[in-house]
């Protein structure tokens, strides 16, 4: 079942923060986050596993709330290079491929 992402789109000025949410109606084993720039392939950002972990690198981090079946991606002090569409992919159980959400289009302006 396709996860639901929110918001659908967001516009930020450089230096502002954003949160992108990904939620599922089914129990999740893992959540994968990707960023895709226009006309390019999705690029892997990070994976979070059930257990409520939080990960991050540079100024992009994410959390996974297993009980709420929700993951959030946090972008702090946004840069122009953060612009793109962010997809979450969820895995509900072993041996099943990821199902991607519809994406959140992020635009960072100067």
């Amino acid at each position, binding site marked *: 079942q*396709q996860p639901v992402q929110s918001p659908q789109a967001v516009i930020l000025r450089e230096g502002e923060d954003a949160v992108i949410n990904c939620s599922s109606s089914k129990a999740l084993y893992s959540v994968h986050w990707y960023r895709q720039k226009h006309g390019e*392939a999705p*690029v892997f950002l990070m*994976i979070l596993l059930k257990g409520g972990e939080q990960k991050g690198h540079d100024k992009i981090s994410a959390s996974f709330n297993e009980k709420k079946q929700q993951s959030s991606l946090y972008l702090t002090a946004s840069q122009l290079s953060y612009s793109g*569409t962010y997809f979450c992919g969820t895995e509900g159980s*072993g*041996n099943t*491929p990821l199902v991607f959400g519809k994406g959140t289009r992020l635009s960072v302006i100067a």
Partner: protein
Amino acid sequence: DAMVIQNPRYQVTQFGKPVTLSCSQTLNHNVMYWYQQKSSQAPKLLFHYYDKDFNNEADTPDNFQSRRPNTSFCFLDIRSPGLGDAAMYLCATSRVLAGPETQYFGPGTRLLVL
């Protein structure tokens, strides 16, 4: 560098004329996927191979077929492309199907149907 390669990057075909897209990988991954992505939409899984085991998504049209002759290569055949098949086609690989294993995407082939 280990990577996922797709050829061609752009493909123009005529309505109803068969077309084949190719994907190769140097990662030696067991799983290969084909996705269709239309403008402003999420990648939609068409099928995947776990080694030689082929898995077709229930809603993948019969018009789409795939071959995986060996670990490194995978092909997407569209037997009779329609205008609605114009899209970006993404190939991806992963070491295993489940668990904390990321998928690595190729650059995609953009298909235009005239």
